[in-house]
């Protein structure tokens, strides 16, 4: 019995996607592409709009660890945050294969359907790890404000690190790529959509600390060991445009749209 190929339109959330998975198994439909409302690519297949249903999503999510092996739900959750192209299709195929094969799929690390997700998740986790070090904050009237431009949606992964680190501070960390921000005040955090961030110019004191940091950064390098290629490998240039030590004041943190 062959399943009918379709294109699913959903709201772009993980819950929405998991509802699609539920619907696909319920109706014997095989999604070959996924669309969110913002995209209007036309496809050759029948398009079906799927309404997010939390109960169905939870059922699918809970079934994963039991039927695919430990860590499956975590892999799917994280894969959904990655910038893997057509991530929905990849995750769907992984699930389809996993449900067929029953236990053991999480051990099949060398299977193409599994390794494509794991590579993408590794990329996400590595980027998140780097941003915990490379993100820079400025003090704006007592509130710490930072901005990052990641390829993957790293905020949910780095959230707990920064809320631990800045336990008694208030801070805002804006993800320019995905237009969302992590907001924190002691005891409370939230990740919300945020299209732009306008900041007033930095105060005198803030400029003073930045200047000291730049001085430290340039002084600590040993001239006889100069090695720009190693520096580029460890700290790729795409991270640098928001980093204090690589920007002059008036660039980077202040050069935000509309300010």
């Amino acid at each position, binding site marked *: 019995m062959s399943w009918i190929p379709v294109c699913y339109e959903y709201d772009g959330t993980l819950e929405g996607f998991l509802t699609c998975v539920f619907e696909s198994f319920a109706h014997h439909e095989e999604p070959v592409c996924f669309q969110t409302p913002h995209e209007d690519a036309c496809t050759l297949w029948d398009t079906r709009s799927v309404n997010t249903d939390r109960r169905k999503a939870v059922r699918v999510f809970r079934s994963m660890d039991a039927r695919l092996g430990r860590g499956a739900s975590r892999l799917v959750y994280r894969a959904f945050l990655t910038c893997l192209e057509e991530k929905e299709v990849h995750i769907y195929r992984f699930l389809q294969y996993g449900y067929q094969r029953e236990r*053991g*799929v999480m*051990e*099949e*690390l*060398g*299977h*193409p359907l599994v*390794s494509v997700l794991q590579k993408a998740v590794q990329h996400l986790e590595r980027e998140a*790890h*780097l941003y*915990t*070090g*490379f*993100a*820079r*904050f*400025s*003090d704006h009237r007592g509130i*710490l404000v*930072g901005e990052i431009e990641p390829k993957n949606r790293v905020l949910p992964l780095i959230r707990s*690190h920064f*809320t*631990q*680190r*800045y*336990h*008694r*501070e208030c801070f805002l960390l804006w993800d320019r790529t995905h237009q969302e921000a992590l907001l924190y005040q*002691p005891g409370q955090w939230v990740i919300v959509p945020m299209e732009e961030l306008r900041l007033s110019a930095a105060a005198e004191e803030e400029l003073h*600390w*930045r*200047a*000291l*940091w730049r*001085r*430290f*950064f*340039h*002084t*600590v*390098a*040993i*001239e*006889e*060991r*100069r*090695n*720009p*290629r*190693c*520096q580029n*490998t*460890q*700290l790729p240039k795409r991270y640098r445009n928001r*980093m*204090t*030590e690589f920007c002059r004041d008036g660039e980077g943190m202040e050069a935000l749209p509309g300010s």
Partner: protein
Amino acid sequence: MNVMDKLTILTDAAKYDAACTSSGLERRGKRGRMGSTTMAGFCHSFSADGRCVTLLKVLMSNACAYDCQYCVNRRSNDVPRATFSPPELAELTIQFYRRNYIEGLFLSSAVIGSPDITTERMIQVLRLLRETYGFWGYIHAKAIPGADPMLTRQLGLLADRLSVNIELPSQHSLALLAPEKKKAGILAPMAQIRDGIAGSKEELARYRHAPRFAPAGQSTQMIIGATPESDRHILTLSQALYDKYQLKRVFYSAYIPVSDSKLLPAPRQFQPPLLREHRLYQADWLLRYYHFRAEELLDEDRPNFDERVDPKCSWALRHMEQFPVEVSRAEYEALLRVPGIGVRSARRILTARRAAPLSFDILKRLGVVLKRAQYFITCGGKMLPGLRVKEDQVLGHLAALERPALFAAVPEQLSLFDGEVGG
């Protein structure tokens, strides 16, 4: 003198210290405190020499009473001198930390007056940070050899990691170049710190709120290439330090000419032995994570590392009788010894082969570097299809693989390879 000038002088004086890690301790944030630490640590930036910047690495003072020949801060050297006041340094640390520039403070110092006075001043800074500012981030402090053990203990209760620099790899070199430092004087605080850490762990097991002494362990560093010791001598010393003193890390620092002393290599023609330092770090990893012993890697006939290939390849080439390893059956320890297979890929092989038979394609997806591993493994009883290399050509092939990377790391060493036939 303003803070900017002090920071410049005291960073410049501290930059030759190799250790810059913020790892070894998981400490979650706490109400009313500032900061946290994590097991793996973070790099916050990379300086122009490609080294990780994670801690604010400065000296408390560079006005030294000693005259060690290899050291830029020696008494007889004509350089500007400066000393931070404890509040200046504490404020600098906190403000850098808040902006996520650093993971904490690495505090070292020249000997101001005496080891005791120096240690007391360092304690003042750490106390200010921990108690007044509620700083909960990482602190690495240098124990000053010769200081009162009670003071070193206080330092260790405030810091996360302590280190004592072994400075030079042999007693003879130490006596020659650092007459004020004695081997016994360096090893005594090291042993004290080791016992302090062990004692604190024992107490913690009994009382949850027992004070923690250097919970991220201790480390040390030595200068490479200023004195004539062989790699074998150095690596055996490191191994003894790991075994006997339970060090977390030994750091190696290629000597950079900072002095005209006749006892040291002349600054003019001298190139810092960066490739040698790199090979020593690679071997150090083999000791700590790959179950190798120093005696296996180097012996009396072969006291130095082959500069063309890494120590693991070099070992494998001399032990071809142990290869090829059959990846679908070999034990973890045997897999770890294959060039091109690391800790991560070895673990993955163990998991993956339970679920499905392995193939070379699968190995590649598991992260095995086949370019290296192909000469040393079979998969399902077969070598990689199409691989035709005679045993004596393998070295040439492996050396050729390293050449582009070496080009980046150590351009001045390239002349080494001019006579080499690539594969």
